[in-house]
């Protein structure tokens, strides 16, 4: 029985082909040669061969207490057979099998984008053992701590750390950033990324599904199956609807005593397009997203995202790249080079992001020799102070200068105001109460922020709100360049959360876009949390939607895609319901029979799949 079952599953397409041949031959004998008996025998053979796979499916489902479409068809076919309508029974089974063949083919198309993603997953690795021997192994056989070697052009098979060598890595599949990044000893590398040049040895930290890339794939696979509310409703509906059709057909038979009408009702009542219509839109929509670096966690996320009217954004790392750069450095002393070198020497010892920006800037100016500097003490919220016998060095903000009686000249004031107007953070260095350097440091705006936000507003976002922990002026400078309606600055993460809750309390549907780490409470509370710019585990876990590419164009694409997907689902449900209604009407008027009803049904299934494919 099991063997037969498997054999039939495997050869179902051939059986369908055989049915087609038998039916055509039968029609030929019936209408051309007029050999009626032979024609009927062929139809009987076709009916029996065709009914077997359908009946097996029906039985398999019934054993698990599921009343399936196959059961309706099986009963109808047996019924037609009993009353001697062999032509009808043969054609109905053929259409049903042919329909599922086409369904399979077209479904593959809607799943193709995710398949392509999974195919990018590494499968093999070059394992290096303790003696330095290299063997090719399956990635599944690797363990934490194993050393693997990757040659130029190769794919990184695991997440891990480089223990030997350097190279340029293309991490587009993880971060969306296609410019190669140089990495060396101690740097982390990710499975699925590529090494452009260089050979490295990597110590494995995680393998397969535990890698960042593995998690991304898992997320998309689960997302495609997690249904939207509409799809869930339809599913539930179908579990009652299918048995109901069975009951209705029985009632029709009892009351009209018309057996043929009863079995026709069975065929016409099949909920084919209804069952597949909503999920197939989701699969196609989510697939399109995955192809474009947008991970939407299932039908629910798509559905909620399409209804968002308020977009709340974090500034640093979201609207801006989060990379601090010096916008301008003004010097006032007689020896600018020496002053810049001193500043860099002081900042070299600090962990502050502003400090890194300064060191990088001074380095780029070609100043590499740092002077000896004294020990520095940190003054919280102001900066740092260092003394030795001959001088006192102050590095920090304006408050630090005022607190220590540093005179701010007219020239200094102008420089400070210019920087503030630009929305910069300011670092001042004074030596012996005299200002030597004024530095403005800024966070770069994402290049497509304006275009992306404009597109989002056009697509239906009513209000864009920026929340930031940064100072008001810096926030305003950023907001002025963008279509932002509202800004709230100098906020703590909890306060950001309060704003999100407040918008929701006023009846708005809120999407929060953040980088996922300090913003996780807001990401989790908003109707939709969108993780952007990191591709880190936290962002992947907390967010409903993850943008692999940190770009506003992809955010806009995601929003429009969500709207389209939801509209597509509705269209499909409409097509399915209209089909059943029209068929029943056709039956009442008397222009629809069993075979033609089946034909219309299968056609409607293809229509909804093709409709969904427009989303790809």
């Amino acid at each position, binding site marked *: 029985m099991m063997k037969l*079952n498997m054999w039939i599953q495997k050869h179902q397409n051939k059986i369908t082909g055989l049915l087609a041949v038998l039916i055509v031959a039968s029609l030929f004998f019936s209408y051309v040669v007029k050999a009626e008996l032979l024609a009927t025998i062929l139809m009987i053979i076709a009916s029996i061969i065709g009914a077997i796979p359908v009946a097996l499916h029906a039985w398999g489902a019934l054993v*698990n207490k*599921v009343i399936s479409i196959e059961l309706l068809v099986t009963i109808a076919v047996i019924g037609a057979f009993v009353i001697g309508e062999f032509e009808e029974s043969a054609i109905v089974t053929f259409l049903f099998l042919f329909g599922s063949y086409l369904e*399979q083919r077209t*479904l593959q198309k809607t*799943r193709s984008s*995710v398949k392509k993603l999974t195919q990018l997953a590494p499968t093999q690795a070059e394992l290096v053992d303790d003696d330095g021997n290299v063997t090719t192994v399956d990635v*599944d056989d690797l363990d934490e701590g194993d050393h693997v070697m990757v040659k130029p052009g190769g794919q990184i098979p695991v997440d891990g750390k480089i223990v030997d060598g350097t190279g340029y890595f293309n991490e587009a599949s993880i971060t969306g950033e296609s410019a190669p990044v140089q990495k060396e000893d101690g740097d982390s590398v990710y499975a699925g990324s590529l090494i452009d040049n260089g050979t490295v040895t990597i110590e494995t930290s995680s393998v397969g599904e535990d890698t960042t890339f593995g998690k991304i794939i898992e997320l998309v696979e689960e997302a495609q*199956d997690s249904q939207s509310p509409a799809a869930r409703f339809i599913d539930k509906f179908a579990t009652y609807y299918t048995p109901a059709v069975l009951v209705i057909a029985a009632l029709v038979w009892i009351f009209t005593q018309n057996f043929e009408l009863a079995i026709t009702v069975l065929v016409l009542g099949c909920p084919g397009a209804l069952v597949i219509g909503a*999920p197939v839109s989701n699969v196609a929509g989510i697939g399109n997203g995955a192809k474009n670096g947008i991970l939407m966690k299932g039908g629910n996320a798509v559905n909620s995202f399409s209804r968002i009217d308020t977009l709340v954004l974090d500034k640093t790392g979201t609207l801006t790249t989060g990379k601090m750069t010096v916008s301008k450095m003004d010097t006032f002393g007689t020896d600018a080079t020496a002053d810049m070198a001193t500043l860099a020497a002081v900042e070299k010892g600090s962990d502050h992001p502003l400090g890194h920006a300064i060191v990088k800037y001074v380095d780029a100016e070609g100043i590499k020799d740092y002077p000896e500097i004294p020990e520095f003490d940190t003054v919280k919220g102001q900066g740092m102070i260092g003394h030795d016998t001959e001088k006192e060095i102050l590095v920090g903000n304006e408050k630090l200068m005022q607190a220590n009686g540093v005179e701010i000249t007219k020239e200094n004031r102008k420089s400070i105001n210019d920087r503030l107007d630009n929305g910069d953070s300011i670092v001042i260095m004074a030596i012996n109460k005299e200002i030597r350097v004024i530095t403005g440091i800024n966070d770069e705006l994402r290049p497509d922020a304006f275009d992306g936000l404009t597109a989002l507003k056009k697509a239906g976002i009513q209000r864009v709100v920026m929340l930031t922990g940064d100072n008001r002026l810096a926030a305003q400078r950023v907001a002025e360049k963008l279509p932002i309606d509202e800004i709230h600055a100098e906020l703590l993460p909890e306060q950001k959360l309060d704003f999100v809750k407040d918008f929701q309390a006023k009846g708005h549907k809120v999407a929060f876009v953040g980088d996922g780490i300090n913003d996780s409470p807001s990401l989790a509370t908003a109707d939709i949390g969108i993780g952007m710019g990191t591709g880190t585990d936290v962002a992947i876990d907390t967010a409903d939607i993850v943008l692999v590419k940190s770009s506003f164009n992809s955010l806009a694409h995601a929003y429009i895609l969500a709207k389209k997907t939801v509209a597509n689902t509705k269209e499909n449900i409409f097509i399915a319901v209209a089909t059943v209604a029209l068929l029943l009407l056709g039956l009442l008027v008397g222009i629809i029979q069993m075979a033609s009803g089946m034909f219309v049904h299968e056609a409607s299934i293809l229509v909804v799949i093709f409709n969904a494919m427009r989303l790809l």
Partner: protein
Amino acid sequence: MAKAILQLGDLTCPSCMTKIQKAVANQKGVSDVKVMFNAGKVRADFDQEQTSGEDLSNVITELGYEVKKLKVKETA
């Protein structure tokens, strides 16, 4: 405990999914089963002392579905 990941051939009917789900869940020692219709994958948590990845694979094969790949990972 261990986790089995089975890659099947393409699934086309949602009722196949229910069948596989129920059949695997009914095995002794299986605590959590997830059938991913679109990815054609089955994920199941099970107790190695009561069943094995091969057993689960056989259950699915007997239902008439091809198991292309079986992966078992120890979880605890």
